[in-house]
């Protein structure tokens, strides 16, 4: 029984380390998805990406006002350029997220998690 208990506790320890690593990774990605532009701060998320793409599809490409994270109005003079930037940042951050998440998922012990 003692051996089984030790294994359970070891696994619990691993799960705690894993949970912290995953939380930290997500926050690192969130920081990468924060974009300062023209005095505003934008959170690059699906909602922003969709809205920007929709405006471009409607040919609203110049002098567009977007609300930033704090609901402040920010003037974007060239929306296509803005769109390219936020899409680039989104793909770069999420790709890093995927890559690093897979690494921590594969690490099945505390020791291996620390090496990721």
């Amino acid at each position, binding site marked *: 029984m003692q051996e089984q208990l030790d294994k359970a506790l070891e696994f619990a320890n691993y799960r705690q380390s894993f949970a*912290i*690593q995953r939380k930290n990774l997500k926050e*690192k990605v969130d920081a990468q998805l*924060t974009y*300062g532009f023209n*005095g505003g*701060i934008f959170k690059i998320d699906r909602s922003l990406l969709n809205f920007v793409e929709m405006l471009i599809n409607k040919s609203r490409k110049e002098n567009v006002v977007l609300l930033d994270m704090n609901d*402040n109005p920010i003037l974007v003079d060239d929306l296509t350029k803005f769109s390219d930037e936020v899409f680039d940042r989104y793909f770069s951050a999420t790709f890093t997220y995927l890559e690093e998440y897979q690494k921590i998922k594969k690490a099945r012990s505390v020791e291996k*998690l*620390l090496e990721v």
Partner: protein
Amino acid sequence: MSKGVIIFAHNNRQIDYIRMSILAAKLANKNLQVPVSIVTDPSTIDWMKESNIEKTVTETFDKIIITQRPDDTSNVKNYNDGKYHVHAPFTNGNRCNVWDLTPYDRTLMIDTDYLTLTDALSAYWEVDSDLLISGKYNDIQGHERVGYLDTHISETGIEMLWATTVMFTKNETTKIFFDLVSHVKEKYKMYSDIYRFNPIIFRNDIAFSIAKHIMNGHQKINEPKLPDIFSTADKDILVDVSNKKLKFLVAQNNSDAYVATTVTNKDVHVMNKFSIMRNYDNLMELAQ
């Protein structure tokens, strides 16, 4: 508009803040690509000369601003190092003078134990806001370890801001703000009665929170803030730094049981100052 980082460093007998500030400055300089200045006092300068780090200090800092050491002799607290602790003065009472002391138009003030390992704060230089303070404490372990007094100045008080990172533009409005912080410090006991917090130790976080609350018309306003302060508690131990990874033992729910984790490419506030000093050389490599 000139921009730069400013760090306050006043040594006590237990903690070599000026040496720690060299590390904080080199990391900030490397990752934010702006000059860093230091505010210190004559006795800390004497120690700097005695410990032969004068040349490094001169090379690291853009400006060395020498000011009178704040009289914080009664402001004493426990500094934890894992399970152990030491009692030492907490000399932090002159942050409100930063407006007068800073040589920059736009200033980022950081703590000596704040390790800037990314350029995340660079996004905030151009934000259209005169004063930005971090709004939240983000614990390395997660919500489980964050108590009400980490988010509010007291059980019945206003929300706490974290003065670990503060960015401001030098203008009339911010002058009023820092003068108000100075006033709150001066009348700390009186404000503790009004805002119902424990005044036993002076905390900039509390003084800044109250001043901001007053300046906002005594109300909570949705306004731009600096990123949450990702922190490790002083019971946590930084055990190793290698391959750009900071390995921590995190005190599970602040108990004596520890869980291991790593931090990479993320700004981190390491409250266990002793463990910073133990890993000083390895941390310094991250600034190269």
